[in-house]
C-alpha cells in the first residue's frame, strides 16, 4: 500500500471521512487490494460535506457525499475513489444504506455506522465488523465497475439489506462477477493508457 499515489490512474484511492478508526481503513484497503488485484492508496482524511446532513433524519445524504467526492481535484489520479465513514447514511427513498455508488461511476461510499450491530442491539466482535466493512466496500466498488446485484447468495454482489446478511456472503465474487470485474478493470486500464499516451504525445 502506498500513501503517495502514482501519476497514472492505476490505483484505487481510499479516503476516510469522519472518525472511523485507522485499523478499519487498513483492513478495507488490504481486502480491496487482495480481492480486486488493484493497488490501493490511502489518502488523507476528509471532513464530511456540511450540506449532506439531513437534520430531520439525523443522517447524511449519501448522494450529496458522492457528489462532493466527485468534485475533488485528486479524483483524476485514481481509477476509483472509495470513501469510508462512521456516519449514518441514507438516500431519499430509503431509511438507510450501508454503502452507495453509481453503476459505472467513479466514486463509492461505505458507512460502518450500522455494521457493528447484531439483531437485538448487541455489538458484533470487531473482526466481524471489519469483515462486513470490507464486504460492503468491495460490493460498492464493483458497482462502479458496472456490476449489478447477483442472484448467487454467496457472492459479494448479492444484495444484503441487513447487517447479518453480510455474514452469509463470502469475501469473494462468484465466477461470473469475477469475470466481469476483470473485464471492466481491463477496459478502464486500456482507456487510461490511451489517455496517457495522448497526453504525452508531442504535437
Amino acid at each position: 500500500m502506498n500513501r503517495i499515489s502514482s501519476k497514472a490512474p492505476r490505483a484505487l484511492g481510499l479516503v476516510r471521512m469522519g472518525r472511523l478508526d485507522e485499523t478499519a481503513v487498513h483492513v478495507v484497503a488490504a481486502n480491496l487490494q487482495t480481492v480486486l488485484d488493484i493497488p490501493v492508496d490511502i489518502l488523507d482524511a476528509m471532513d464530511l460535506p456540511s450540506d449532506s446532513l439531513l437534520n430531520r433524519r439525523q443522517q447524511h445524504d449519501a448522494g450529496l457525499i458522492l457528489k462532493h467526492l466527485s468534485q475533488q481535484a485528486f479524483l483524476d489520479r485514481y481509477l476509483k475513489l472509495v470513501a469510508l465513514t462512521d456516519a449514518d447514511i441514507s438516500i431519499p427513498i430509503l431509511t438507510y444504506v450501508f454503502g452507495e455508488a453509481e453503476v459505472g461511476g467513479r466514486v463509492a461510499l461505505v458507512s460502518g455506522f450500522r455494521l457493528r450491530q447484531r439483531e437485538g442491539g448487541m455489538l458484533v466482535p470487531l473482526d466481524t465488523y471489519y469483515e462486513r466493512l470490507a464486504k460492503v466496500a468491495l460490493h460498492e466498488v464493483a458497482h462502479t465497475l458496472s456490476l449489478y446485484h447477483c442472484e448467487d447468495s454467496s457472492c459479494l454482489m448479492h444484495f444484503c439489506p441487513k447487517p447479518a446478511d453480510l455474514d452469509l456472503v463470502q469475501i469473494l465474487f462468484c465466477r461470473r462477477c469475477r469475470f466481469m470485474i476483470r473485464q471492466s478493470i481491463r477496459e478502464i486500464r486500456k482507456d487510461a493508457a490511451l489517455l496517457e499516451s495522448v497526453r504525452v504525445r508531442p504535437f
Partner: protein
Amino acid sequence: MSRIRILVVDDELIVRESLIGWLKKSGYEVSGAEGGCRALEILEERDFDLVFLDIKMPDLGGMEVLQHIRRHFPQTMVVMITAYGSVENAVEAMKSGANDYLMKPFEPEQLTLLVEKLLQQKKIIDENIVLRHQAASRTRYEDLIGVSDCMQQLFCIIGEVAAVDSPVLLSGETGTGKELVAKAIHAKSSRCRGPFIPINCGSFTDTLLESELFGHETGSFTGAVKARKGRLEMAQCGTLFLDEVGEIPLKMQVDLLRVLQEKKFNRVGGTTEISVDFRLISATHKNLQEEIEKGAFRRDFYFRLNVIEIEVPPLRDRREDIAILAQHFLERFRRETNKPLVGIQKQAMDVLEACDWPGNVRELENALERAVVLAKGRSLTKEDFAFLIRSPGQTTLQSLKEMEKRHIQHILNLCRGNISKAAGILEINRTTLHNKIKSYSLQVNE
C-alpha cells in the same frame, strides 16, 4: 431474455433519481418521468413491467395515471409511492387497482422484497397469457376461428366430412368463410397432399369460365395460342372448390354433370378424353332450391353437388366469436403494419359485438384493418370504430334534438335493446338513457 423494464414517476428529482439509481444496481432497465403527463407519453411509447407512481404530482395525479394504466396496460404492475402518514391515499389507490404501495422513505429490504414479489406475480400473469393463447388455439380449426356452439359443431362436421370423399355443398351468406371451410375439409382429408384448386365461377364470362375449368387446346379459339390445363385437370388427386356455383350457366352445368358422373372430359377444342380424380366442394350464397324453381339451376346437377350440405353460420348468429376474431385480426394487421397496438378497449369491443355485420367475417376483417391503419393510440378505442356507429341520415338538415333522438334509437337498435351496452357506447349513465328513451318515446327492441 429481455431486461425487466421499470418506470419511476415522481416530480421530486432526488426521489426519482435515487430510486432509479437503486433499481439500476439490480440490473433493471429503468426510466423516469417527472410528472403524470410525461408518464402517459412514455407509457404510449413502450411497455413496462413495473411502474412506481407518486400519488401527488402537480400536472396529473398518480390516481389518474393509475386509472389510465389499468385501462390500457392491465398487465403492468403498479406500486404507489406516498408520503409518510398518508395511508388513506394508499388505501384508495389499492382499491383502484394498484398492486402495492410504499411509504417514503422505505426500508431497503422492504423495497427488494416488494420488487421481487411483483415481478414474480408479473411472470405468472405473463405465463397465464401464454397459456390462454395456447387454449385459444384450441378454438381454431385449420384457419377457422370460433368458440361458439355452432362453430364447434361445424368443426365436428368438417372432421366427419373430411373422412369421406363425397361432394360437399357449402351454403351461407357472403363473407362467412366458406372457402376456409372448404380448405379445412381438404386439409383434413386423405387428399391433403394433393392440390386445393379454387375457382370463383361468378368472376368469369361463360366462355372464359369454360376455358378456365376444362382448359383448351391450341387454336381452339382466337387467342388460344398455347394449350392450357383447366382447373379440373389441375385438381388431379386433390380438391376442386367451385365458389359461387349458382353462377354457372345451364349449359356448362350439363358438361360438369358429365365430368362428375364419368370422371372424364375433353379440353375445349380437344378430342382426347382426359380422366380426372378429384373431390368436389362447391359453395353458394344463393338459395339453389329457389334457383331450380326459377329454372336457373339444374335439379340433377344440384343433387350431384349436394350429397352433403353444410351451412356456414352468419357472424350475427355467433356473436361470441366476434371478440376472438377481432383479436385475431388485430394481431394480424398489427404485425403487417408494425404498429405497437396492444389490444381493443372494452367499449370498442362492445361496439363490435353490437354490430350486425351483414358482410360477416370479411366485413369485420375490413373494419379491423381500417381501425388498425388509422389508430393513433396503443389500443383500439371506440372512436377508432366510429365509422361503424354512424347514424343513418346524418347528411340531412335536422335539429340537435332530432339528431340525438335518431342517434340514440340507432345505438339502441345496434345493441338490440341492451341498455347497459347502449349507455356505455353513448357514454351516459343508464338512468340518463332511460330518461332520454322516455322523453323521446324511443323503441327498445330486443
